[in-house]
């Protein structure tokens, strides 16, 4: 039996009692009993995990239990246990906004239904953007301009000239430097009142959960399936909303996944739509399939819009809906989506409780067994020595017209029907833009037609231009 002294601010939860006699052999038992008898008091004493809150001090007699055996401190008869709220504060954050910030955000603050309240939520929020490319560029620019207090950026790439057709956050001066570094510089120049944290690394199953735990909202701007599933699964496991967007050639998609509604129920996620990924190679990424530069500008901006709506609670988000936009026809469609009982993450019988190997899951590893390779300089060597070989280019006609190195054009989609054009009596070098499509062509020829004389040009035509013929046009 201990006498517990309830501090004045918490007495309204104990029917105005300042002293309560509670049985229990330890502090933990006493607090447990107290929470049981006075449920409203519980949230002021314990956090979600059931640990004593950092703003609450517990004293046994005159001693802080932090100096004793913490919550396991044993209690004798007639011990006095005091609950002592930490009293602290200070002007450090000023009135949250400086005069300059209030002026900067004036056009937000004067919107009826948005106002200082929504602006305050933006400033207090932390948003993590995966990828600072086509989608990330506009999303980052608008979120920074809007005054999101902390923005994190994950990207391991460096700025390349071919990015600038759509990745508007970068400029020619930044070619060759890490994207996150260039992006941070641009964002800080745009809005010095925000924090920008950069992670010049690949998002992996090893670092995703820890990283996500530090943010309120995740926005996925990646262009490959392994990362898309990783971001989705990590968002669900970490309990964070995931603003999804993707683009391909002329079409874009946006949705909000795993966003809890007012009742605390999570909305659908990517796995409710697509439990498993498409076969590898079926859907090419931007580097392979191309993308109209303005499209990520549109879709990335919509992504920023949904992030802002989630943070501020203003308007209805795309949670439970899936939006598509066709830039060619200007047709937009919004589909209703629902949670699926069979969802392996959070359906009725979840089978995924930790992050997995997403490369393997998406079949990227399993199928991409190695093909024989040849470097650009080796190919040049063969050319100089007059070694007999056939050169096949599996890109599209439009790419071939732009630049070629004299290969025979057989686009990847037609390789099977043109297998008889591929030589069997000498070595054959196959190339595309960067090496991805040519590897697929070689696998198809080897598997279906039994070729064993095929070599993939490492780095594709771009690698060849860099090393052998820099005077040619890169694209």
């Amino acid at each position, binding site marked *: 039996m201990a006498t517990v*002294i309830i*501090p*004045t*601010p*918490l*007495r*309204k939860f104990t029917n105005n009692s*300042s002293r309560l006699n509670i049985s229990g052999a330890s502090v933990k038992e006493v607090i447990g009993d107290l929470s049981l008898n006075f449920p409203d008091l519980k949230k*002021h004493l314990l956090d979600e995990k059931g640990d004593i809150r950092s*703003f609450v*001090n517990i*004293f046994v007699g*005159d001693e*802080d239990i932090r100096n004793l055996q913490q919550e396991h401190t044993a209690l004798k008869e007639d011990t006095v246990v*005091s609950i*002592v*709220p*930490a*009293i*602290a*504060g*200070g*002007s*450090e*954050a*000023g*009135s*949250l906004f400086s005069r300059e910030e209030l002026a900067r955000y004036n056009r937000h603050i004067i919107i009826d239904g948005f*106002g*200082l*309240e929504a602006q305050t939520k933006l400033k*207090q929020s932390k948003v993590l953007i995966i990828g600072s490319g086509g989608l990330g560029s506009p999303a980052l620019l608008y979120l920074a301009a809007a005054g999101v207090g902390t923005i994190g950026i994950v990207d391991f790439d460096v700025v390349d000239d071919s990015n600038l057709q759509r990745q508007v956050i970068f400029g020619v001066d930044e070619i060759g430097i890490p994207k996150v570094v260039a992006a941070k510089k641009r964002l800080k120049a745009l809005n010095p009142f925000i924090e920008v944290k950069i992670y010049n690394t690949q998002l992996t199953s090893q670092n995703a959960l820890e990283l996500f735990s530090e943010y309120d909202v995740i926005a996925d701007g990646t262009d490959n399936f392994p990362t898309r599933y990783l971001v989705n699964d990590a968002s669900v496991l970490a309990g964070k909303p995931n603003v999804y967007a993707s683009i391909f050639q002329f079409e874009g998609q946006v949705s909000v996944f795993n966003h809890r509604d007012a009742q605390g129920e999570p909305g659908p996620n990517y796995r409710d739509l697509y439990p498993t990924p498409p076969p590898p190679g079926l859907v090419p990424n931007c580097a392979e399939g191309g993308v109209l530069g303005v499209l990520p500008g549109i879709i990335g901006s919509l992504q920023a819009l949904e992030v802002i709506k989630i943070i501020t609670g203003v308007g209805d988000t795309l949670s439970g809906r899936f939006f598509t936009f066709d830039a060619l026809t200007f047709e937009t469609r919004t589909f209703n989506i629902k949670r699926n009982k069979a969802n392996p993450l959070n359906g009725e019988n979840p089978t995924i409780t930790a992050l997995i190997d997403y490369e393997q899951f998406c079949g990227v590893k399993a199928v991409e067994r190695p093909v024989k390779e040849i470097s650009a300089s080796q190919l040049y060597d063969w050319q100089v020595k007059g070694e007999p070989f056939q050169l096949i280019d599996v890109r599209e006609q439009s790419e071939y017209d732009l630049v070629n190195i004299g290969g025979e054009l057989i686009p990847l989609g037609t390789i099977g029907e043109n297998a008889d054009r591929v030589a069997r009596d000498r070595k054959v070098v196959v190339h595309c833009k960067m090496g991805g499509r040519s590897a697929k062509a070689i696998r198809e020829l080897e598997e279906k037609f039994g070729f064993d004389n095929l070599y993939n040009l490492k780095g594709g035509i771009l690698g060849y231009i860099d090393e052998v013929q820099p005077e040619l046009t890169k694209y």
Partner: protein
Amino acid sequence: MAKSSNEYYSMLQISDSALENMINDAVSSFPDECCGFMFGTEDEDVRKVREITIVANAKEGDKRRRFQVSPVDYMKAEHYAEANGFLLLGIYHSHPNHPAIPSEHDRVAAQPYFSYVILSILDGVYAGLRSWRLNEEALFVEETINDHQTIQ
């Protein structure tokens, strides 16, 4: 911003002597933040602060932007209230060279029920005070201060 239904419309009256002691503490502590407890009575929605006790700012490091009350001082304050038949009504602290508006740091650390009086001290000169109290949504709502009416 629209006021929600559960906001307080309470009033705080501060006795002349308590007000004088608070201001003196805030001015003499400048440029550091000062802090202390307020004691008194509560009748319906009117709180009357009759006395204050000054406590040391226990914040380690820069006290110009932060204050902290030690748990021992807090327990003493509860005892003092009990022994003298007062209610512990809240805390006062100063914002040196800042307006008397609660910061996010104030809000996060704030307790329910308590009145938080903030005194603004600009360049060492008292520049007014305001009082704030958390509503049910843990947001600060300003309390009306009636410092013209002298209370005994």
